[in-house]
């Protein structure tokens, strides 16, 4: 999987590149409008992560160029502007997703993952971790041949953990992923705790393995070989 990251903030770009590379993507970087323009013209990518405000031009112009080339690349817009009109313009121009700064890298990864699955497998991809098989279309989880019954939120939580496996996922990040960032929960993550506990119990009951570890007060980590 080849990703192009177009972002003018070097620290953020490094962090995005580091994490997405860890996840097994081949990442290329562009830090300006011109650099992005060159890369888009020369190479094919599976996913383009695109910042709107760039030195030298507007990211939306790059999006238009991509679409003119009939590129198959999925486009995830990253913007400091949490504005509905920007979002709508982006979607109208053919962007697939929109994420607002500041974001959690796990969230970015989850979005990229969803985009890749949607693009390359037309959604028909199964995610397999050890003996767990997840069907993202039917939203079901099987252990060997047994269906494990999860609530909607538990399923989403499990998927989030698996996509970000071997990484400490913070409670804030989980809360935002599951409930959106518009409910101001103010550091009250009891709900995250309860859901994670239920998820752990259910998985452990079926598989006998507790995949999810608590990491001090920082969050949880889904570990698998």
């Amino acid at each position, binding site marked *: 999987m080849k990703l192009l990251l177009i972002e003018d903030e070097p620290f953020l770009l490094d962090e995005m590149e580091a*994490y997405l590379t860890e996840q097994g993507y081949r990442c290329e970087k562009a830090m300006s409008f011109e650099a992005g323009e060159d890369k888009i013209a020369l190479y094919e990518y599976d996913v383009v992560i695109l910042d709107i405000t760039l030195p030298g031009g507007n990211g939306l112009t790059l999006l238009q160029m991509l679409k003119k080339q009939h590129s198959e690349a999925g486009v995830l817009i990253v913007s400091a*502007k949490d504005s509905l009109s920007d979002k709508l313009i982006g979607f109208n121009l053919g962007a697939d997703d929109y994420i607002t700064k*500041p974001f959690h890298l796990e969230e970015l990864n989850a979005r990229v993952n969803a985009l890749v699955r949607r693009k390359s497998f037309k959604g028909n991809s199964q995610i397999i971790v050890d003996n767990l098989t997840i069907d993202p279309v039917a939203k079901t989880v099987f252990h060997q041949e047994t269906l494990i019954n999860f609530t909607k939120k538990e399923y989403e939580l499990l998927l989030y953990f698996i996509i970000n496996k071997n990484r400490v996922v913070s409670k804030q990040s989980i809360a935002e992923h599951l409930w959106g*960032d518009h*409910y*101001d929960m103010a550091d009250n993550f009891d709900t995250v705790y309860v859901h994670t506990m239920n998820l752990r119990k259910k998985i452990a009951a079926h598989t006998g393995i507790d995949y999810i570890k608590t990491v001090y*007060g920082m969050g949880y980590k889904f570990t698998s070989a």
Partner: protein
Amino acid sequence: MKLLYKTTQNFLLAMSVILAVAGIALYLLLRKEVTDEITEQLELQAELVADQVAQGKIVNFPLISVSEVSADFPSNKSLGDTLIYDRLQQKNEGYYYLTLIKKVNQRNYRILVMTSYIGWERYYKTIFISFLGVALWMAFFGILINYYSNRKIWRPFFLNLENLKQFSVRSAQPLQWHDSTIAEFKELQYSLKDLAERSRREYLALREFTENASHEIQTPLGIIQSKLDRMSQLEVNEEMARCIVQAKSGVERLSKMNRNLLLLAKLDNQVYSEKQLVRVDELMQQHLEQMEELFSVRNIALSKDLCPVTIKSDRYLCDVLLSNLLSNALRYTSSPSEIAIFLSEQQLIINNPGAALDFSSEHLFDRFTKSANQPQGTGLGLAIVHQICVLNGWTIAHTYRMGVHYFSIDFN
């Protein structure tokens, strides 16, 4: 006191003083002139009488008397007035008399001449009445002229004043000025125009600044957050872990506050002027489903009574309004308890049991007002709700009765 009354009052006061002084002066001058003239006339008469006596004629005129007196009679001249009965009018009339001693042909004669005069009383009365008349007419026309011309002159001033009262730096329309021909008013108008334009420019700059600042802050926040995420992947001891968690929570709060400030700035900038038809009950239902677990974990039951309601508003703002109200209820509800939501064509009511406010309720919808017990809040949620209501022409009210908070929004 109105300027118009004040000037009229001053004018009337000055006019009465001037008229009174002029009246008294006229009376005194007239009296002196007339007295002098009468005295001269009487003296001349006495002289003529003396001439006739010298020629040996017997002087016998009415109002004149001549009598011979002894040589040592004191020869003083005296002027005075007296009353004489007027048979025709059957009343006493005032007369002036002059008596003097004249030596004619070595003999002493006492000559008395008299003439009638209009009583000073009457002079006084005539002057008073005519001046009073003048005063009344002048006052009447003065007030009339003052009133009408002033009204005409001051009209642009009052119209501009009325405009100025309506003026708000927020309103997009420039002020309409009414021109005047008066130099001072023109000057005032120019100054006001300038002032209004300048404050509006500065307000716009400030607004733009808020929006830009909020945008610019997002990226550094993103860097901090991603670096903290990276740090939490490392093997760290418990103390370090605590520091990272606290730093993250700070970043989280800052980022939320920033986003809320940005939203407020946009509401102020009236970015959301488009209105669609929004099904409030469906929107509410979506939120309640989404928040279901958040409530159940806190042992909060939900009772809802939602009528199908369609309103005209911006969909995104309705979304924000409902999520902010529900977040507020979620956070400040005591647990276990029950939150009740009623939605009708006219209004939306959300009641939640909870502790009384620890600040004055009139500040509830102000920016950055928050309970001392919940310092993690941004204090902007309800300010945003209020602003959205203002923008849509709805009224929001909060009451606290018997341990329950009632938030009601009136859609009309």
